[in-house]
C-alpha cells in the first residue's frame, strides 16, 4: 500500500473516492484538500448512502417556506410568523463523552435553527440507552441528561419534552437526538448563501482549536469497537455562554439586516462553511486562514479546515456593512474576523501562511460527493420473527402486570431527567414535559405550537414500514390531544451499518412508511438527519427512526387537556378502533421478555378521523384529560391519568388483552357527565368508535374483565411510576 493510500484510508476515504478527487482536480490533492474532501464526503456530511432514499419524502405543502437542504426547515404560521425546526443526532460523541457529547449536540441543533434567522424557543431530547443495571449505561444516561441540562439551561432555551427509552440494543451505542424549534418574523428569514461576488465572509464566535479534528469522519461515520477510546482526541467541548452571546449577536444582525447569508460551523467546520454557501450561491471564494482566530498555535491548514470547534458562525456581508457587523460582535463580546471574499466563478481558494493550500471547485465538496446505491435485502430472519407470536392463553394478574409496566424505566415517569431541564423559560410552556405532546403559546398571536417526538425501535425492528408509518400517526395524535393539527415533520434516522443489505432495507422501509403516513396526513418532511453505523462489535441497533412532528392550534385552547386535570366522577372513554395488537408491545416485553409477531398496520382513514376528533375535543374544552394510547395500552394510560390527577378509577373491558393492546389510532378521554352526549355525537360524526370503560374516583385503580378483576392501590401505582428511573440509579 502506497504512503498516499495509507493517508486517504486513514482519513476514512476509499480508494475509489480518492480517485474521483483526482478526477475532479486533474492532479493529486494537496494535504489540506484531501482533508476537506475526506470530511465533506464522510457519511455524516455527504449522506452518500442515504441521499437517493431521502428523495422519497414528500416535502411540498403551501405552508413550506424552506424544505430539506438548508440548515433547518421553515414553515409559515400565518400573520407574518415563521417557524424553523430541525432534529440532529449526537450518538457517537455522546458515547465517547456523555456530558460534552450531549451538550455539543444541543449547541449544534440550536445553531441550525438560529442560522435561519429564528430565535430558538424550545428543545426536545430523544435519548436511548442500554439497561440501567449496567453501570456504564447509568454513567452514560446521567452524563447525557446532565449535558443537555448544562448546555440548554445555560444557553437559555427551555427543553420542554422528549423521550427516554432503554433497550439492550443501545447498550454499546446510545442514541442522543435533539430537536429544536424557533420562530421569527417573515422578513428575518436568512439562508445559507454566500451572496454576490465581493461579499465578505466574517467568522464569528469561538477561536478555532483542535477540537473534533476529523470528528465528522472519525466519530460520526465509523463504527465502534473496544478502541473507541483511541478516538478521544476528537472530543469537542461546548460553551453555552459563548453560544448565548452568539445567538443574541446573530439575531441583532438579522434584525438590522446586516447579513446576506449565514452558515453555522458544524461537522466539517470551515470546509463546509465556505464551500456550501459558495456552492448555493453559485460562486467561488478566497479564504485567508491566517485571519482565523485560533485557540492553539501551530495548527496546520488541514486542522484549521476540519476543526469542529463549537460556537462558530460564518456571516456573509456586503463590504459596506462589515464595520457594523464587527461592532455588533464587539457589543456582545464575541470575536469576529474577516476571513474571506466571495468571488465570481466557482473556485474555492484557500491560503495559509501566504501559500495556496487549496484550490478546488467549491461545489465539488458537496455536490460531487459520492452517492451509493447500497444493496438492500429483506432480512432472512424476518418471516421467522413474525411467526413467533404469543397466544396469551394464561391471564396475568392485571394489577401486578400493570405495576410491572409502570415500574419499567421506559414507561415510568421521566421526571428524574426533565426536572433537570429548565422547561419554563420564556413563559410559553402551556403543556410541558410529562404529557403526550408539548404545547407552547406564541406570544403576540392567538396561536399555539405543539410538538411531539416519537421513536420505537422494537416496532421498526418487527416491521420497519408499519413502524415508520405508526410513528408519524402517533406523533400526530400526540399533538392533536393538545388541540393542534399536524403541520410538518422532521425525522432523525438512527440505523446500523448501511453496508449491510438488511440495514439498508430497513432504512428504505422506514422511509416508505414515514412518507406514506405524511402523505395521508397531507404534511411535508421539512428536514432531518441520518445517523448510520449505530452498531457495536458488528451488532446493529434496532432501526430507530425518530419523528418530530410540529402542529399548530389556532387559536390555542383556553384550557388545554392535561394528564393531571382529571377529577372524581368523570367518565372514562376510549376512542378509536377496539382492536387487539400485542406484537412489539410493552406488555410482551416487560411481562414475557418477548419480541416477536407482526405489528398491526395503520389505517390511514381512521388515523385522520381520530386525529381530527382529538383536536376538536381539545379545542372545544370538552375533555379535561386526553391521552393517546401507546406503550402499555389502556392499563398504563389510565394509570398515568390517575397518578397525575391523584384520583382512582374503575374500568372494565370484556377482553383483558384490550387493556395492554397497542393497536394504533386510539386515545383515552375523561368527560364530565354533562358533556358525554356532545362528545359522543362528535365521535359519531367523525366515524370514530367510542367505548365507555369506566369512571374516575376512589383511591384504587380497578380493572374488570370477563375473566378476572384486580385492583391496584393508587399509592402503589404512583410510587412505582415515580421510582422507575431513580431507584435504578441509586
Amino acid at each position, binding site marked *: 500500500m502506497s504512503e498516499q493510500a495509507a493517508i486517504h484510508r486513514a482519513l476514512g476515504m476509499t480508494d475509489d473516492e480518492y480517485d474521483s478527487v483526482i478526477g475532479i482536480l486533474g492532479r493529486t490533492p494537496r494535504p489540506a484538500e484531501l482533508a476537506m474532501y475526506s470530511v465533506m464526503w464522510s457519511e455524516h456530511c455527504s449522506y452518500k448512502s442515504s441521499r437517493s432514499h431521502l428523495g422519497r419524502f414528500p416535502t411540498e405543502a403551501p405552508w413550506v417556506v424552506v424544505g430539506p437542504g438548508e440548515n433547518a426547515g421553515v414553515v409559515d404560521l400565518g400573520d407574518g410568523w415563521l417557524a424553523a425546526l430541525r432534529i440532529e443526532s449526537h450518538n457517537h460523541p455522546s458515547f465517547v*463523552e456523555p456530558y460534552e457529547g450531549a451538550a455539543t449536540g444541543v449547541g449544534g441543533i440550536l445553531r441550525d435553527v438560529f442560522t435561519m434567522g429564528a430565535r430558538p424557543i424550545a428543545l426536545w431530547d430523544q435519548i436511548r440507552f442500554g439497561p440501567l443495571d449496567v453501570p456504564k449505561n447509568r454513567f452514560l444516561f446521567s452524563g447525557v441528561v446532565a449535558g443537555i441540562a448544562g448546555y440548554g439551561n445555560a444557553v437559555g432555551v427551555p427543553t420542554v419534552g422528549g423521550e427516554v427509552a432503554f433497550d439492550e440494543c443501545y447498550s454499546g451505542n446510545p442514541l442522543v437526538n435533539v430537536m429544536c424549534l424557533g420562530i421569527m418574523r417573515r422578513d428575518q428569514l436568512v439562508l445559507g448563501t454566500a451572496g454576490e461576488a465581493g461579499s465578505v465572509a466574517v467568522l464569528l464566535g469561538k477561536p478555532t482549536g483542535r477540537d473534533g479534528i476529523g470528528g465528522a469522519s472519525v466519530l460520526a461515520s465509523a463504527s465502534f469497537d473496544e478502541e473507541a477510546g483511541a478516538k478521544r482526541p476528537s472530543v469537542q467541548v461546548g460553551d453555552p455562554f459563548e453560544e448565548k452571546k452568539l445567538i443574541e449577536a446573530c439575531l441583532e444582525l438579522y434584525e438590522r439586516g446586516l447579513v446576506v447569508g449565514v452558515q453555522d460551523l458544524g461537522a466539517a467546520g470551515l470546509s463546509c462553511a465556505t464551500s456550501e454557501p459558495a456552492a448555493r450561491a453559485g460562486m467561488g471564494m478566497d479564504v485567508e486562514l491566517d485571519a482565523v482566530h485560533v485557540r492553539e498555535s501551530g495548527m496546520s491548514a488541514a486542522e484549521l479546515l476540519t476543526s469542529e470547534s463549537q460556537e462558530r458562525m460564518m456571516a456573509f456581508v456586503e463590504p459596506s456593512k462589515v464595520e457594523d457587523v464587527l461592532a455588533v460582535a464587539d457589543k456582545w463580546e464575541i470575536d469576529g474576523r474577516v476571513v474571506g471574499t466571495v468571488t465570481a466563478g466557482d473556485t474555492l481558494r484557500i491560503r495559509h501562511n501566504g501559500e495556496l493550500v487549496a484550490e478546488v471547485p467549491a461545489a465539488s465538496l458537496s455536490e460531487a460527493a459520492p452517492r451509493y446505491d447500497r444493496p438492500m435485502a429483506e432480512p432472512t430472519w424476518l418471516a421467522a420473527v413474525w411467526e413467533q407470536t404469543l397466544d396469551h392463553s394464561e391471564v396475568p394478574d392485571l394489577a401486578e402486570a400493570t405495576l410491572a409496566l409502570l415500574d419499567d424505566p421506559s414507561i415510568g415517569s421521566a421526571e428524574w431527567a426533565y426536572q433537570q431541564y429548565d422547561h419554563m423559560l420564556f413563559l410559553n410552556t402551556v403543556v410541558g414535559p410529562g404529557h403526550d405532546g408539548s404545547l407552547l403559546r406564541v406570544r403576540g398571536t392567538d396561536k399555539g405550537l405543539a410538538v411531539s417526538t416519537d421513536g420505537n425501535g422494537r416496532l421498526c425492528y418487527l416491521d420497519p414500514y408499519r413502524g415508520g408509518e405508526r410513528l408519524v400517526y402517533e406523533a400526530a395524535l400526540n399533538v392533536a390531544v393538545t388541540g393542534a393539527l399536524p403541520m410538518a415533520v422532521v425525522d432523525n434516522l438512527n440505523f446500523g451499518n448501511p453496508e449491510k443489505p438488511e440495514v439498508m432495507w430497513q432504512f428504505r422501509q422506514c422511509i416508505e412508511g414515514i412518507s406514506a403516513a405524511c402523505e395521508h396526513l397531507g404534511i411535508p418532511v421539512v428536514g432531518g438527519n441520518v445517523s448510520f453505523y449505530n452498531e457495536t462489535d458488528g451488532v446493529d441497533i434496532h432501526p430507530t427512526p425518530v419523528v418530530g412532528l410540529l402542529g399548530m392550534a389556532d387559536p390555542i385552547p383556553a384550557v388545554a387537556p392535561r394528564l393531571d386535570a382529571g377529577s372524581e366522577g368523570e367518565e372514562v372513554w376510549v376512542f378509536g378502533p377496539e382492536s387487539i395488537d400485542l406484537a412489539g408491545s410493552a406488555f410482551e416485553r416487560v411481562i414475557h421478555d418477548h419480541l416477536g409477531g407482526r405489528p398491526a398496520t395503520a389505517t390511514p382513514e381512521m388515523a385522520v378521523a381520530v386525529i381530527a376528533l382529538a383536536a376538536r375535543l381539545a379545542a372545544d374544552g370538552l375533555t379535561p384529560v386526553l391521552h393517546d394510547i401507546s406503550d402499555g395500552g389502556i392499563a398504563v394510560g389510565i394509570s398515568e391519568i390517575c397518578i397525575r390527577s391523584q384520583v382512582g378509577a374503575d374500568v372494565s373491558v370484556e377482553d383483558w388483552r384490550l387493556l395492554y393492546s397497542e393497536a394504533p389510532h386510539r386515545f383515552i378521554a375523561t368527560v364530565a357527565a354533562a358533556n358525554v352526549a356532545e362528545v359522543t355525537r362528535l365521535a359519531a360524526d367523525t366515524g370514530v368508535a367510542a367505548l365507555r370503560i369506566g369512571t374516575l374516583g376512589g383511591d384504587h385503580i380497578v380493572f374488570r374483565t370477563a375473566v378476572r378483576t384486580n385492583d391496584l392501590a393508587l399509592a402503589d401505582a404512583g410510587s412505582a411510576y415515580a421510582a422507575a428511573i431513580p431507584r435504578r440509579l441509586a
Partner: protein
Amino acid sequence: MNVTVTIRRRSVIADPHGATVARALADLGHQGVRSLRIDRTIHLEVDGEDPETVREQVAAMCEQLLANPVLEDYEITVDA
C-alpha cells in the same frame, strides 16, 4: 496516608471557564496575566501502610470517578 491528586484539564481541550475568568481579570485591569488554568486538587486520607498499594488504589479511584479520562490528566502524590 495522605494522598494528593491533581486533576488537570488536557491543554488541547478547550477551557471555556478559564478563558472567561482570564477575560474578567483583564477587564479588571490585571493586564499582566499571561495564562490561567484552573485545576482541581483532591486531598484524601486513605487507610494503608504501603505507599505503592495506596497509590494504585487511588489511581483506580481516578480512573473510575475522580478524573474524566477523556478530558483530564491526573497526578498522584502520596505524602510520606
